[in-house]
């Protein structure tokens, strides 16, 4: 087959056309960045090891504690249009009404103001990577006690939060009408997530998509989280591989003592503070070869579906549990990166 080469072009244009394409509108800029993204390797070959002191001072420790040790389902979210932090109270009221209306579909009439739920919007002050990152916020649905005497807040039925940690690449491309909180984490019944997501989509013209984590990114997480210095390990480092076979798929679990994992990492790791693609690959290859020596199974031929460490654990379905307070921001920064990649 011929090699394709462009013959000398007819118009005697002096320079390459690329020089003429100076993106004028943000849409154009976006398209250009997508082109770049698509034509090169999608992820940068090196990342920072999460630093422990990144969490801002003014974060409410109670709220942070609330976010830890829970399983969150991940979504990516396009920028919110005309969202305003000064209207959170109003949003609580409207979302409350919306949820009630949705839940009552098929019911004829609502007499009185008998909402059994309460919606609370609150900001997560300080939950950001840079000063430019917009404030994260939390939405909670509480069940209200039926008894009038006991008018305390009841059980938390559903929680979701929106955040943006080091979302610079996204922030650059939108105007001030938009609020970029590309990462959304939900905990609670899927039906509630659906209702609340629908309300946000209708109100702020945004779009939620489930954020899944492929094996490639799971490996990165494994390496980065192993690299974190943890004072005392609360969990073993565990990997889960899935072998597609019928009638039931076979799962292979591979647990390592976290100190062994760390030792392996330290033997691989070269530049302090940074993780490179080669190091990630090497780390995984070492695990593979070790496993092969013992069980004669090539794990590289299977699919990595879950990674758990003392820092956090992540499932390919887009479920995450963050265990370590110190590295919360670091974990979220990587998730934000994945979310931004999905919506770009």
């Amino acid at each position, binding site marked *: 087959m011929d090699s394709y080469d462009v013959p000398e072009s007819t118009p005697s*244009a002096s320079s390459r056309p690329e020089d*003429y394409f100076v993106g*004028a509108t943000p849409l154009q800029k976006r398209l250009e960045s997508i082109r770049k993204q698509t034509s090169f390797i999608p992820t940068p070959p090196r990342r920072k090891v999460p630093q422990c002191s990144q969490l801002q001072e003014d974060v409410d420790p109670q709220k942070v504690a609330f976010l830890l040790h829970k399983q969150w389902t991940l979504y990516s979210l396009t920028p919110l249009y005309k969202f305003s932090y000064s209207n959170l109270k109003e949003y609580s009221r409207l979302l409350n009404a919306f949820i009630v209306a949705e839940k009552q579909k098929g019911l004829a*009439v609502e007499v009185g103001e008998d909402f059994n739920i309460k919606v609370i919007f609150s900001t997560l002050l300080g939950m950001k990577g840079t000063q430019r990152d917009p404030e994260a916020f939390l939405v909670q649905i509480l069940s209200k006690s039926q008894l009038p005497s006991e008018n305390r807040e009841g059980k938390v039925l559903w929680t979701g939060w929106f955040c943006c940690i080091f979302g610079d690449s996204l922030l650059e491309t939108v105007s001030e009408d938009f609020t970029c909180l590309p990462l959304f984490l939900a905990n609670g019944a899927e039906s509630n997530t659906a209702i609340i997501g629908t309300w946000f989509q209708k109100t702020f013209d945004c779009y939620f998509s489930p954020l899944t984590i492929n094996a490639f990114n799971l490996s990165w997480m494994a390496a980065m989280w192993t690299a974190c210095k943890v004072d005392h390990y609360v969990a073993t480092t565990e990997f889960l591989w899935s072998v597609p076979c019928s009638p039931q798929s076979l799962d292979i679990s591979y647990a390592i003592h976290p100190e062994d994992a760390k030792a392996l990492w330290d033997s691989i790791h070269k530049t302090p503070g940074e993780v490179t693609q080669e190091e990630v690959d090497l780390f995984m290859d070492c695990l593979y070869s070790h496993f092969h020596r013992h069980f004669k199974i090539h794990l590289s031929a299977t699919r990595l579906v879950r990674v758990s460490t003392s820092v956090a654990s992540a499932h390919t379905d887009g479920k995450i549990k963050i265990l370590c307070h110190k590295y919360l921001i670091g974990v979220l920064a990587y998730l934000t990166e994945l979310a931004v990649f999905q919506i770009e």
Partner: protein
Amino acid sequence: MSPQKRVKNVKAQNRISQGSNSFQTTLSAWKVKQGPSNSKNISKHGQNNPVGDYEHADDQAEDALQMAVEYFEKGPVKTSQNKDKTLEKHLKTVENVAWKNGLASEEIDVLLNIALSGKFGNAVNTRILKCMIPATVISQDSVVKAVSWLCVDKCSGSTKVLFYRWLVAMFDFIDRKEQINLLYGFFFASLQDDALCPYVCHLLYLLTKKENVKPFRVRKLLDLQAKMGMQPHLQALLSLYKFFAPALISVSLPVRKKIYFKNSENLWKMALLAVKQRNQGPSPEPLKLMLGPANVRPLKRKWNSLSIIPVLNSSSYTKEYGKKEVSLSDCLNRSGSFPLEQLKSFPQLLQNIHCLELPSQMGSVLNNSLLLHYINCVRDEPVLLRFYYWLSQTLQEECIWYKVNNYEHGKEFTNFLDTIIRAECFLQEGFYSCEAFLYKSLPLWDGLCCRSQFLQLVSWIPFSSFSEVKPLLFDHLAQLFFTSTIYFKCSVLQSLKELLQNWLLWLSMDIHMKPVTNSPLETTLGGSMNSVSKLIHYVGWLSTTAMRLESNSTFLLHFILDFYEKVCDIYINYNLPLVVLFPPGIFYSALLSLDTSILNQLCFIMHRYRKNLTAAKKNELVQKTKSEFNFSSKTYQEFNHYLTSMVGCLWTSKPFGKGIYIDPEILEKTGVTEYKNSLNVIHHPSFLSYAVSFLLQESPEERTVNVSSIQGKKWSWYLDYLFSQGLQGLKLFIRSSVHHSSVPRAEGINYNNQY
């Protein structure tokens, strides 16, 4: 009302409307009645339009439905042996149509009467009632007639219950309710029936107006409540009465209790959604662009949205949030902004374009042609960005080859792509989201799934730098191109032709608009032309290779020449300074083709190239000044070379001298003695049959024909004969490029400025 009477009634109506008196024509009469105002506007795109759907629907299905309705009209034929079979068949037909597209209000009228008249058994009545799903609306009269059947007690209790449930479920689709409201007393009396009571309550709940609340009714309701206990449905009705006339009801009703009605809609849930969707279609005027998914998707993973495309809602919602306190009057007379719901016509759009209330979800514009106009001309960044994000994410989410086992949604995704493509055609502009989507999805595409849609998306890629787009799109497309069938190759060439055309149109507009608007791409004309010329060269390369792979297929060559028919006319048709010739691999394949139409097309293209080059030359001479876009002498040389070859072959019978040069020794080795004239208009394999027919026409009784006898005067008669056979391209070519002198010679274009 007896059946007898009713038929007469229908006949009477029929006579009024159509002057026909056979019942059979009434169905078609309805269609005609619905038709005229719309039919003109319905283009082939009218998929979502129920009326359009109906008209375009398979004739067979329509006939079947018509027959089924007639069958039910006549009632069961007692003597027929396979009565059950026929009945079943017709029932099935009605059910299928009803659940798929809904029934016309006239069909519902007929069938509803049948179901309630007790002509058939209970089971049949139930089935008919269950499929009384309107295409758009139900006429009030049908309901009134149906209710009148309830009085004569021909149907069973369960049928009645089902009827009330149906009435409640379809309440919103009844076109008017005044007459139904007149039957309030009748419905109220039906509360007596314990089985009906909950459903009648629900109906009354929907129907009650203030004037319906009367003391005697309140008393009756309270009596019932005393008799039956605290029933939620009675309470609901009572609380409504209390709302209208608090003075009449002194009983305290539990305020803090939720009140339920038995859910009457369950049976028709999906159908109701479908009808709502049909009814929500855009305003009747721009029927040309009926967009939106035609059938309802199952709720599945979707977040309670019926369709991919959000429903059009004005954004009052968002706006009002900005204010601290929203008063009712603010909402009602939001002065200065024009609500979308009222936007029905293009003039309205023009008048209110400055104060249009935008939809809360920008994606919904895809379903509304008027708003498409709007986003086409608005340069408001947030508007475009919202649409961009929505479309990008939706495409990504819906794309079926991203996810394994997602092929069940294939139809839906195809429809969605069709909708986008229609919008793009309508706007004559591609969306950036689609381009970004192609970057991501093309490398994963199998070349089969949604092929037509995908290639159309390619043809709507907005104009941009070819060298930037090539590695992202065209290199992937080329891989598929070379490894797929000839049909795929042809489709790709076709869509590349459309892409070229779109780019050219865009550029030719852009050049003229430049002083007025700010083009999104800050490009120079030179840069743009370079990009277009690279695209053409790329297609030239694809075509040449494809010709070799497909062993010079005539079919493929047609598509290639179609592309060059666009290319050769760029200078004149689009007023853009660009002439790119075809590569030799295409030119000679076409010249030596066995197919006359190919050769004819080649002649036409050469003729147009000549026109364009001559026009360009003329402009150069007029302008005197050396502009950036003077074509290099190489282009003229190339053209003259092709021209010499062509005239040498077809006209002067000196084929292998200039142009195609073949060493005389090699020609001798072939052993063909008379090679010189073997490619002229008489002996060329694709013309030979014409020459023979020409001679036979001249002298039909001749046993042997000698084509070489076509000479001198006969030669020009022969040419006239060829022209009369529809070879217009050849005619134009010969007229423009061949000097009619004793010594025919090629008329090249002088490229040394010595014109």
